[in-house]
């Protein structure tokens, strides 16, 4: 993955618009967050291989970026995206990595299902 180049990422997001696509979306503080820091309120969410069709997708803000996908009846968004790649399977993988390289958020878009 490379640091986000907003114009290029915008082109890639546009290329998946108006198609049925599989989504991976997660946010995480890590399963040990409240072990290492007592009282830490650990929250996160994870969906994988949910199919959506978005009509408009946008890269917003300076890095870390926000990515929003407008659906006919709803929304998908991720905040804190710093890195991206189009992998060899044509999947758009985006991630938000903290300064130590730990993932905090991930949004991925693919025309084929992700593995289990």
């Amino acid at each position, binding site marked *: 993955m490379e640091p986000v180049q907003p114009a290029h990422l915008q082109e890639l997001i546009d290329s998946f618009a108006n198609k049925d696509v599989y989504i*991976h979306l*997660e946010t995480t503080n890590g399963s040990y967050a409240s072990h290492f820091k007592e009282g830490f309120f650990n929250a996160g969410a994870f969906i994988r291989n949910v199919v959506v069709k978005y009509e408009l997708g946008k890269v917003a803000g300076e890095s870390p970026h926000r990515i929003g996908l407008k659906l006919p009846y709803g929304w998908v968004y991720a905040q804190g995206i710093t*890195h991206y790649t189009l992998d060899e399977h044509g999947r758009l993988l985006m*991630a938000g*990595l903290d*300064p*130590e*390289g730990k993932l905090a958020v991930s949004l991925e878009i693919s025309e084929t299902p992700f*593995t*289990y």
Partner: protein
Amino acid sequence: MIKQERHVLVIFPHPDDEAFGVSGTISTYREMGIPVTYACLTLGEMGRNFGNPPFANRETLPQIRKQELLKAAEAMGIDDLRMMGLRDKTVEFEDDEKMVKLVADLIEETQPSLVISFYPNLSVHPDHDATARAVVRAVRRMPESDRPTLYTIAFAHNTKEVLGEPDIIHHVEGAAKKKLATMNAHASQTVWMMKDMEKRLADQDPEALKWLHYERFYTYRWDRDFE
């Protein structure tokens, strides 16, 4: 003194769960000629260390960690490694009976005299606790006289209040090189920790040496069952 065993079955949910506190024990069993089966439930697909600049992404991480697991098994001398195909962070959401059966089938097949896993609800990560619950339940369902011994690891902050001190202490200094090789095999997870650890070991830091040379377990007590 490490007791002789017929067959040891190790069950953990993530590649590297075995490295920190059990790899010296596993390596020692193998040197004693004792068969060890390691069933690793997931490939740590949801790990967070990608590095900066990143060396992996969410979709490549499982293959990287699979290779690391194979290398770790080799470092410990394990020749029976099972990858059970579950997904990281989802173990507790699997059907409880399916999980018990997964463990029961492994026990039925390998006929272990000793099973090593986590202690239920004192092992911090939800996957650890879910694995431990399945292991305890599977063993509990066996007739008492057929049950393998169960060594457990616990590291929640309140462990000592609940369980006291570990009753099994293995001196594994003889396997120190293999333990370090196992830790280093899981590089994507340990490289940061090991940089610090190697410095502390070079400085003869007593806590670091204690970590390297001793491994501790709680024998599961059926008279103090967790549920």
